[in-house]
């Protein structure tokens, strides 16, 4: 009799622990960078005031938009901060990647790049843009709200999002730091999105 009651108490103890652990752990576990195959969290960005940037993204009007609305086959997203030395160091290489894309007729208008400044105000993002002559659109995330949605990633963080013909999208590449240079990174993105085979069978 006593044995049975001890057993059931142990079982009770374990199950309560398990349930509570799950309850407390789940928020912590969601704080991971997005994985390959995932869809993006719902991120609202302000439609740029600059006409050039709106044209680049294929957007019009004012208000907000979501990344999958960008007119492209693949969108490369960099999460950066003007305060992050690695982001500063990588900035010229990301610019180079933009130039490689724009100079290649097979990629221009198909691959677009945007940057999101984690914890950066509009002013701080502008400082970064001006300092490094960043040619693609950058967005401020002063209150870290986008950064939180993206699993509080370390900066710089890179993701590539593939837009499917049916309007759906998926993350095809997700990378914390270690930017390998314009060409190798682009190669990786084109292969993981299937663009490489489509364009050069």
């Amino acid at each position, binding site marked *: 009799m006593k044995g049975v009651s001890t057993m059931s108490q142990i079982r*009770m103890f374990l199950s309560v622990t398990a349930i509570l652990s799950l309850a407390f752990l789940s928020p912590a576990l969601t704080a991971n960078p997005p994985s390959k195959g995932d869809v993006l969290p719902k991120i609202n960005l302000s439609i740029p005031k600059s006409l050039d940037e709106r044209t680049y993204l294929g957007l019009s009007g004012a208000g907000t938009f979501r990344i999958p609305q960008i007119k492209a086959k693949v969108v490369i997203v960099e999460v950066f901060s003007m305060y992050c030395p690695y982001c*500063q160091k990588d900035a010229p290489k990301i610019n180079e990647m933009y130039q490689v894309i724009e100079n290649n007729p097979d990629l221009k208008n198909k691959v677009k790049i945007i940057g999101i400044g984690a914890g950066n105000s509009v002013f701080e993002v502008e400082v970064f843009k001006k300092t490094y002559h960043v040619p693609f659109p950058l967005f401020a995330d002063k209150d870290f709200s986008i950064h939180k949605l993206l699993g509080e990633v370390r900066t710089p963080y890179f993701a590539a999002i593939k837009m499917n013909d049916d309007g759906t999208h998926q993350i095809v590449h997700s990378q914390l730091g270690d930017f390998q240079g314009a060409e190798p990174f682009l190669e990786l993105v084109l292969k993981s999105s299937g663009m490489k085979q489509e364009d050069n069978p």
Partner: protein
Amino acid sequence: MNKKRLKTIIWIAVAISVSTSTTLAFAISDAFKENIYNVGILKPIDSVLKVKVGDRAPEFTLPAVSGEKISLKQYRGKKNVVLSFAPAAWTPVCSDQWPGYNIVKDIFDQNDAVLLGITVDNIPTLFAWTNQMGKLWFPVLSDFWPHGAVAKKYGILRSNGVSERALFIIDKKGIIRYIDVHDINERPALEDLVNELEKLK
């Protein structure tokens, strides 16, 4: 009696679950370096200012990482001075302020201002730490010995021996024109400092 035991068991289970999940949450934060300071465990401000706007700034002479000694009075009549106190050298680099200030020398120049970075750490620690930020254009001063003496003079030495995250603007006459003893868990927005600097013109 059985009920009482059951209650005890549940409480133990709760305690274990909470402690386990807390440890794991910290482990995750640790991996995302910039969040160590964002977990909100530090008291936002833990000192009482001893100076106010309009006061003559307390004089000091401190050793710089470069090997020279820097005195506040050497800028008298020549430059506005921004003092940026950072809590401690082990603050995760990416979430810190100085790498950001490092790309806006032009803003300081336009406002006829110099920047002095100060922490309570010793010179070798500051040397190693600031090396990770790239080459800094502004002097980094050590308020290590007598420990935190300058921070104490200004009233920003916290009870655990580190300084607040604080900004002071001192004009060419040596008068304090702006004080921002910031929530230690957050980085002050660059535009606030720039706006205040522009008021000196």
